[in-house]
């Protein structure tokens, strides 16, 4: 009988307890952190790192690993728990304090000033001075060279940040941490922006640093890389720690099972889908971003009328770029996208809406809603020029009011009145306003990007039910979600994206198992060409 997930965790915890007290560079005990919107990011998490090891912190987005490290680096404070650095109890209220104790963090989005040189970025805030008044630039350069050579992180001190490739930028970030005295390095998804070649180089450097006694915490979800250079792995899921394991002693499949899985399966009641012909056809989409990384590789699929097609995958594997191609002015390097046989690439949002596309954006407060405007004003933003809402030059206020009231009622938006400002509503209700507008526009295709992220259970259930209702009525729905429950239960068919490619297509999701999903999402498995081509319906 296979040990349950919890059983596995317990086994490994035992093993750790039995090891003699190795010098722990970092020890976090019982960390609990709850965000203001009520979401528990970390729940009673234990996390410890031995001095001189490369330790991986793994988990899907939302698992809590970034939050845990933010707490360690002083960017956030935990409600409960203790932190020990090199045996000393600490409480960091700012990154400054963490840096002072020898912790350095390399963020996923670089904190570098583009027009300054490498050397200048290195010494920002700790500038060496000449005659008390001027920067000793030569000293800054020699400092950079010194650290660069010592740790074999080759950078040109005189190069401008804007001109150097991403891989070099990362080296600068690492050097920045080292020059400020870091002995413990936290790297947040360092390979997300690197090409394969750059990743190899990075690993060489990390191993060198390890040899020199540095402790490295490596946040990632990329299984192969973790297997390659880390000593131990801590896996997080749903805000909890799933235990720590020796890298050598655990298989990729086992990691995948621990990482990707649902503790509670929230099924969505729905009738079987009866999809007809395709409403959206995406063919051979290729896109390389401005830093030279190819984010979409020959992506081809169709969304059919009457179905919900989900795009699953860990964030950062091309899903956002794909959605951008569909609804913004962003153009791919090659490929076609057609809505009902009309090319839509590069078309403006007003045209796209006229053609019948509705869009629920990931960033709802920037693109989906106008916070300082009223609910009513938000609801009519895509249709206020229509004849039925205008009487000559003036608005037909009664028609608009009726429309707003109807939508507020139908979508169960909890508000005092339609004249209430959207910013005063709860997150779930704001999203319901966005959804109300987008769904009621009589679309042919709905693109929903993280539609229920960060909102309450009631609103979530409602929105999902609506999506099913609409798809059964003949609309095609493209759902992008990092929430495993959502993507597996809500989608009728689903595509898994990994590294910019489609690695799996499942026409029927009802018998899909969590661990299978995990393996595709983490790049362990890939379907055959033929199976993937199944996604291209006519």
């Amino acid at each position, binding site marked *: 009988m296979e040990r349950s997930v919890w059983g596995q965790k317990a086994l490994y915890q035992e093993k750790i307890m039995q090891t003699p007290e190795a010098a722990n560079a970092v020890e976090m005990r019982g960390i609990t952190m709850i965000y203001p919107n009520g979401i528990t990011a970390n729940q009673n998490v234990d996390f410890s790192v031995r001095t001189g090891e490369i330790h991986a912190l793994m988990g899907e987005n939302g698992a809590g690993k970034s939050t845990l490290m933010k707490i360690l680096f002083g960017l956030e404070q935990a409600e409960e728990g203790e932190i020990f650095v090199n045996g000393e109890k600490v409480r960091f209220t700012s990154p400054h304090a963490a840096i002072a104790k020898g912790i350095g963090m390399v963020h996923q989005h670089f*904190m570098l*000033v583009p027009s300054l040189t490498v050397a200048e970025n290195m010494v*920002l*805030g700790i500038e060496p001075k000449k005659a008390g008044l001027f*920067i000793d630039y030569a000293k800054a350069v020699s400092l950079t060279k010194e650290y660069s050579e010592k740790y074999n992180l080759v950078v040109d001190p005189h190069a401008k940040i804007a001109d150097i490739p991403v891989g070099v930028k990362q080296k600068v970030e690492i050097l920045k941490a080292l020059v400020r005295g870091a002995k413990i390095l936290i790297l947040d998804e360092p390979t997300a922006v690197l090409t394969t070649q750059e990743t190899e180089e990075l690993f060489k450097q990390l191993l060198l640093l390890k040899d020199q006694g540095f402790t490295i915490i490596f946040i990632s979800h990329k299984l192969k890389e973790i297997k390659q250079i880390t000593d131990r792995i801590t896996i997080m899921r749903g805000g909890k720690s799933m235990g720590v394991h020796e890298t050598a002693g655990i298989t990729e499949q086992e990691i995948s099972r621990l990482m990707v899985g649902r503790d509670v399966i929230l099924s969505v009641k729905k009738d079987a889908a009866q999809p007809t012909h395709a409403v959206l056809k995406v063919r051979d989409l290729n896109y390389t971003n401005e830093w*030279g990384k190819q984010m979409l590789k020959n992506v081809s699929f169709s969304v059919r009328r009457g179905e919900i097609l989900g795009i699953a995958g860990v964030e950062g594997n091309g899903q956002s770029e794909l959605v951008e191609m569909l609804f913004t002015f962003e153009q791919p390097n090659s490929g076609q996208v057609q809505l009902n046989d009309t090319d839509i690439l590069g078309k403006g949002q007003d045209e796209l809406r006229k053609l019948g596309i509705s869009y629920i954006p990931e960033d709802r407060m920037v693109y989906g809603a106008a916070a300082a405007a009223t609910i009513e004003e938000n609801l009519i933003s895509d249709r206020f020029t229509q004849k039925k809402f205008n009487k000559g030059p003036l608005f037909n206020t009664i028609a608009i009011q009726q429309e707003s009231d109807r939508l507020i009622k139908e979508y169960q938006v909890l508000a005092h009145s339609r004249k209430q400002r959207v910013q005063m509503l709860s997150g779930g209700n704001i999203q319901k306003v966005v959804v109300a507008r987008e769904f009621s526009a009589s679309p042919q295709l709905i693109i929903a990007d993280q539609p229920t992220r960060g909102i309450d259970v009631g609103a979530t259930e409602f929105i999902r039910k609506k999506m099913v209702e609409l798809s059964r009525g003949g609309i095609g729905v493209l759902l992008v979600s990092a929430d495993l429950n959502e993507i597996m239960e809500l989608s009728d068919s689903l595509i898994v994206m990994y590294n910019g490619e489609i690695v799996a297509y499942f026409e029927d999701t009802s018998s899909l198992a969590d661990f299978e999903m995990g393996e595709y999402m983490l790049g362990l498995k890939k379907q055959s060409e033929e199976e993937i081509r199944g996604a291209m319906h006519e």
Partner: protein
Amino acid sequence: MLQQILSSVFSTDFLASVFRITAPILFAALASAVSERAGVANIGLEGIMMISALSGVLFSAWSQSAFVGVLGAALMGALIGLMMGFFYLKLGTDIILAGIAVNMLGGGGTIFFLYLFTGEKGNSASIPSKMLPTVDIPILKNIPVLGALSGQSILTYVAFLCVILVFILFYKTPLGLKIRAVGENRNAADSVGLSVNRVSYIALAISGILAGLGGAYMSMYYSMGFNANMVAGRGFIALAAQAMGRGEPLGTMLSSMLFGAADALRNNMEGTGLPSQLVSTIPYVITIIGLSLYTASTMNKAKRARKNRALREKKGDAV
């Protein structure tokens, strides 16, 4: 008539007047550059110049020393800069609105305070303010074109010197590095523990000092004493000069000189029978045209850069 204009343009006198007219614009443009690089737009330059012009007059009259006058003007400029910072950073007033308020203050407030201190309303002719000394450079002044460099007021030289000083500030001092970092990537500055607020205050103070010097220039050399309409939009022209100069000291100097030359041309054409009012519009029209051409070209450059990168990828070049 064209010949008349051309012959007067290519003369030492004309060149000298270009320097003279550029100087106050240059001061204000450099002021704008410093604050802009730090990420705080200072559009209250017009107001600061007016207030400092009055301050220079008052301080010099009171102390009977031009030097004290200039010092007082610079000090007032710094104080106003700091005040703008206070309203923006502490009280949350939009920095643009704060700039507009300063301009308003400069407009009516100067007349008010002039009256308060001198009993006059239109100008300060009644009080014995000092003028800035001019500097004659012995041999230089006799050489044809270079002679323009001699006989300028001391602040004219200071203005062009400030180009170098601002350059040194930006690129050779720790403060300048901090200013550039804060203005370009606030997060990067935060992440190394820089106090963005402190840097903003300092940048606004420096900006105020430079604009203050520009104001002192107007009332203590360009004109004799203070009068109500003396700054005439130079503070705004400086904004355009700064935009065209991209916040770089050298570029700022060149675009300031462009507008200075346009203004000098206007003075030159006054004798030629072309209507003076229309000629007066030349500097402003050139500003609009210059600004548009410049921003159009940068927009195109960015588009071209992106296209090039995409093309390179297609060709398979290693990135």
